[in-house]
């Protein structure tokens, strides 16, 4: 019974996702088509002959009617073909395959940091409302949110890497330090090959970028969890549990905290997207060879095809993640399944 309601929920949720994906892709397509001229001319127009330009235009299908291009774009997006950048010999998919694992790894570490410290301090602050701990926790949450990601990263780099030499100043583990590449996720690869020195090197490079990015987002979680705790601590079922003589500790964890976490899971999807977006700043500061830096170099080269491909990929990732988060949510909260 539970599994059938879960299946029904999944189906309806997927059905809701498709229009959103379609609209996102359409917006991306339209946005990158409003620029004057065409992508090829904008990128290399002044460097090649007009014949060459025409050939490349024809090859890229830019002479087809807009609606045909749109159809081809959509089809490509769902079949995993994000186009061929003008300024890079690789296909967009290859660029993504080369760089996304680095970004994803960074974002996962940041997420762990953010959730770890945000949820802990937020929950305690909510329980201890208006005590000095609460005020300090809130201020810390607000200030860490207010600090620009790149600024914190720069200062971390200045003090912890340059002055104290505790961490590398940037980049991913490379050369002999890097694990044999299987998935592109270094931590995963070093675990798969059980290469502990590579694991160490990977983490060593990850820690500072991951922490500086995660700390900033921890502030958001902190504030959110605190507010949820304030509400669940006053919930009817919490008072009812007290009235049944359930111990303070159990009421706190089993009822107040667990219920406070439901909306947190919901925003985690959105936060993940935000982190993915903001990781571009961290990548820039630490010369992290990730998707964000790839996007920035396409933007810098005015390579619209590359930009469009990467943005499309981001859109797909974001939609898939929000779908996954909803599924997790449905597993936790029985009400959603109905």
């Amino acid at each position, binding site marked *: 019974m539970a599994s059938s309601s879960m299946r029904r929920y999944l189906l309806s949720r997927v059905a809701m996702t498709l229009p959103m994906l379609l609209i996102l892709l359409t917006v991306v397509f339209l946005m990158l088509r409003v620029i004057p001229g065409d992508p090829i001319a904008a990128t290399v127009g002044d460097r090649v002959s007009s014949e060459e330009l025409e050939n490349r235009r024809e090859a890229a299908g830019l002479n087809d009617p807009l609606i045909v291009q749109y159809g081809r774009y959509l089809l490509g997006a769902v079949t995993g073909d994000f186009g061929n950048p003008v300024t890079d010999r690789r296909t967009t998919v290859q660029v993504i395959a080369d760089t996304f694992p680095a970004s994803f790894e960074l974002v996962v570490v940041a997420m762990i940091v953010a959730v770890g410290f945000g949820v802990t301090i937020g929950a305690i602050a909510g329980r201890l409302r*208006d005590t000095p701990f609460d005020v300090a926790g809130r201020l810390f949450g*607000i200030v860490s949110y207010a600090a*620009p990601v790149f*600024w914190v990263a720069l200062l971390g780099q200045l003090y912890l890497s340059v002055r104290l030499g505790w961490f590398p100043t940037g980049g991913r583990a490379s050369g002999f330090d890097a694990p044999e590449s299987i998935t592109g996720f270094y931590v995963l690869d070093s675990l798969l090959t059980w290469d502990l020195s590579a694991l160490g090197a990977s983490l060593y490079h990850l820690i500072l970028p991951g922490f500086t990015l995660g700390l900033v987002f921890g502030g958001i979680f902190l504030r959110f969890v605190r507010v949820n705790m304030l509400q669940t601590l006053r919930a009817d079922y919490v008072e009812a549990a007290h009235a049944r*003589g359930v111990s303070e500790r159990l009421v706190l964890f089993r009822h107040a905290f667990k219920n406070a976490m439901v909306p947190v899971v919901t925003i985690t999807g959105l936060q993940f997207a935000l982190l993915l*977006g903001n990781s*571009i*700043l961290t990548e820039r500061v630490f010369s992290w060879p990730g998707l964000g830096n790839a996007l920035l170099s396409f933007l810098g080269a005015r390579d619209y095809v590359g930009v469009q491909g990467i943005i499309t990929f981001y859109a797909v990732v974001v939609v898939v993640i929000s779908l996954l988060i909803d599924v997790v949510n449905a597993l936790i909260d029985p009400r959603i399944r109905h």
Partner: protein
Amino acid sequence: MSARARLARTAAPFRAATRTAQVLIVIGVLMTLGFVFVATLGPTLAPYEPTQYQVDPEEPEAGQLPRLEEPSSDHLMGTNRDGFDVFARVIGGARVAMIVVLVSTLIALLVGVPLGLLAGYRGGRLDRILVTTMDAIYTFPSLLLAIVVAFLFGELFAPGVASAASAVGIVYIPQYFRVVRNHTLSVKQEPFVEGARSLGAKERTVITRYVFFNVVQSVPVIFTLNAADAVLTLASLGFLGYGVPPPAPEWGFDIQQATQDITSGVWWTTMWPGVAIILLVTGLTLVGEGLNDVINPLLRARGLSGTKLRGAPIGGSDADASLPRGRAKAADRDADDGADPPGATTSTSPNGPHRADGPDGPATADRDSLPPTAPVHSATAGVEPVLKVRDLRVGYRTPRGPLWAVDGVDLDLAPGEALGLVGESGCGKSSLSRALLNLMPPGGLVTGQITLAARGDGPGNEEIELVDASRRQLRSIRGDRASLVFQEPMTRLDPLMRVSSHFREAIKAHRPDLSNDRVRELTETALAKMGIPRTRVDNYPHEFSGGMRQRIMLALGIVLQPQLVIADEPTTSLDVIVEAQILDILAELRRDADVGLVMVTHNLGIVAETCDRVAVMYAGKIVEMGPVEQVFNAPAHPYTQGLMASTISLETTELHSIEGSPPDLIDPPDGCRFAARCPAVMDRCTEVIPRLTRPEDTAVDDHLAACILHPGADPADPLPDERS
């Protein structure tokens, strides 16, 4: 409403906020105002222009970068690699940030609001498409969106303040859209829109106007929080080179320029613009969050504002009833709800044939607490009461001072006896029912005596005094020897837990050594008694109807065979059939297990049906108490008489109501608290607090009323036994 009254109403939630919340908001407002000041006047006050070359012309070294000067009295924050004064750049950056925040908000409003109105007003497919589009934009990483838009606008037009502001503004369109659309949708269904149309007004005009006034209230919060975010987004754009282009002073770009300085140990070029961003964003967030904390009723810190309560009030009450009645009532009700969490549906009454929604009805006088020496009333004299209450007071902290929701109550309850506790909303009956388990929300205080009799022999079953009991002792009593069954069955069960888990938790809390099988057995038996089949034991709360949930709550309350059950409106919001079932179960409990029952309700019919005795509460005090039949047939207190007159029965030809509203409990009137509404009021009523005494014409011994109409009630009179 006058401007002043309007202002006072707007400020009311702020005054009700806790001290910490107030301080944080004030700090945030000051920080934000400081920045607005700097942004508007700063550039004229700053020592240099942000783009004024600061290098000594004496040493022009062609092709070489200028020397970065450390912070000094000349250059408070040093100079940067362009040779500009960092302090002047930071101040100039405030102006750029303010302009971009304002322009981007304007763009978001100009696009989001009309689209929201359109979507909400037209509905249908257009609405669905717009909503999905906005959701899609909202889901997309906002910084990436801003980067791409800034890039495109830069290509299409030219990079500058306008394209940066558009890029930042686009990110916030979905939020304004959503607020406006949701308001429009809900307004469209309001009856007054139809009414306005029938009067000839244009529907569209009415909706727009109404939505406008509603949305305007939530805009400050959205705006401040978005402004904070906008400052960060602008800086990020600047850092990546897609923001306001140089040489305009922009914090993010300046930090990007300073990146290389870091390796050579120069910190001031990075530090100061970052500090400026942190201060501004912190200020804005403090304001936005503070407003939210104060405005959002779900977050209000009830019970924690005002002075902490230390003990019971001394003496009676000082008379200064200058406060408006309306507010008094509101405050009163707040206090009564103090223990109820938000969103609790308090009373929606399915109209049973005998429903007497207490408030309103002309009636009598009322009195104050007995001195502890006064005669106490017990139905079954000679039997040791299961519950003995003396001089019970329940107080709450409020911003205007302490509020005593229960003010000196004495009660006895025999085993197997059912006592009805009636009165209008806010009379203190819910507070009393929680106080009987000493279950207080933060800031609440219980004083007096509550004695729970021993339950047989054995450890943990001895007689216990609940007011001074330790937390551990109280915990062991609650749910085991004494149970509280709440109203609102829909919200009292944890939505994430199976019903069986609720039982396991409650049973294990008191009988940790029971085996799982035994726990299961107890659970199934208790639920079966309530008519919940064994097959549903593992379902989640949302899979049950309201009536079933109420029976589950009741089963949870009696699974450990308590001596005392306090039922707070156990049948409100249930239909008549379920109500009858629940009342039967309660009656059975009393009969078979000798459970003492306190039934809190405003439904006199239920009391007549199920209770032996009834206590009528008014403004925190018991004004009349006695056998149900006696009190209902021959009420001795004018308030009870009013309640009876406002009851609907088969013979009702005329419906009476008690005029006026209950007194302000923060500042209660002198003398009898019912005096102001009493049809039989005399001068003496406002001078003395009447005590509970036996009316002379009553047929039974344990009938008591607190009204000076009856000899002996005036504290100046001799006590009845002295009289005889």
